[in-house]
């Protein structure tokens, strides 16, 4: 997976919204790690300076889309059939780290699990599960 880092970054560059998030991704032996560098546009509540929850979920979903593409042998970022996310702690105005791995990958479906944290890896700020369907060839966009 580590050998695919340039490929993952090229898939992000191929996605205007993922590029706007400015995610940095690297493969690991288990899945992917990513960093969402802090930017002012990521702040959801300017008074307590926390990240927008939707930015957190969108970033986790993008990283999932990269891993799903790799697992399904495709060459572009994928969109999930569903995502479920829980926000376990409030966030601060710093980088967001994301790790994601496959729980189970089959021929048609992948079930992925992601965690997000900031300065302390033991303090998880969000957990997400997502399901990706590998579309049949004729419906691939």
């Amino acid at each position, binding site marked *: 997976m580590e050998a695919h880092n340039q490929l993952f970054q090229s898939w992000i560059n191929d996605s205007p*919204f993922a590029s706007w998030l400015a995610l940095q991704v690297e493969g690991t032996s288990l899945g992917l790690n990513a960093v969402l560098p802090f930017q002012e546009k*990521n702040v959801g509540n300017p008074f*307590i300076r926390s990240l927008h929850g939707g930015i957190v979920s969108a970033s986790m979903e993008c990283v999932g889309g990269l891993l799903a593409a790799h697992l399904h042998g495709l060459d572009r970022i994928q969109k999930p059939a569903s995502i479920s*996310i829980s926000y376990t702690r409030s966030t601060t105005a710093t980088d967001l780290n994301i790790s994601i791995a496959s729980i189970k990958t089959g021929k048609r479906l992948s079930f992925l699990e992601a965690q997000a944290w900031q300065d302390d890896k033991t303090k998880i700020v969000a957990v997400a599960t997502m399901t990706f369907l590998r579309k049949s060839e004729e419906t691939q966009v």
Partner: protein
Amino acid sequence: MADLTKHLRERFKQGSHPFFGKLDMEMKQASNGHVSLTIQPNEWAALHNDAPIIHSGLLALLLDTVCGMAVMSSLETPTAIATIDLKIDHVRDAAIAKKLLIEATVEETSEEISYTNGQVREEETHLLVAKAVGSFMVGTKGPSIIAPDTEASS
């Protein structure tokens, strides 16, 4: 219950919002626990550079925001809120050429948690694009982002 329609329309008019400012948005209603708005996507919203469909992560971002707006419009006084859980089903691809109708409603508020649902539909056909169920904690730390002046003076 608060009527935030005018307040939110003014915010979007300024065009300074980091992501709503990138979309052509029309706020129809944000009151009594219900929000309804339309957006006209553009190339920035695309899943791939040459793909005609919207990035699902952007829809997740919009649904989280609109469900939160519905909660804020259901409150008697401005109160800080935070998303606890959000589940989104991406039902079908949405073409960036099509205007989208995004709606969210508060179903119930009990013991400091508001339970919402939201939908994204093609405005013209009403075909379902994505649906969300979200729960929000009401009364978290800090002021409400909707009416900070009111909070600061109280």
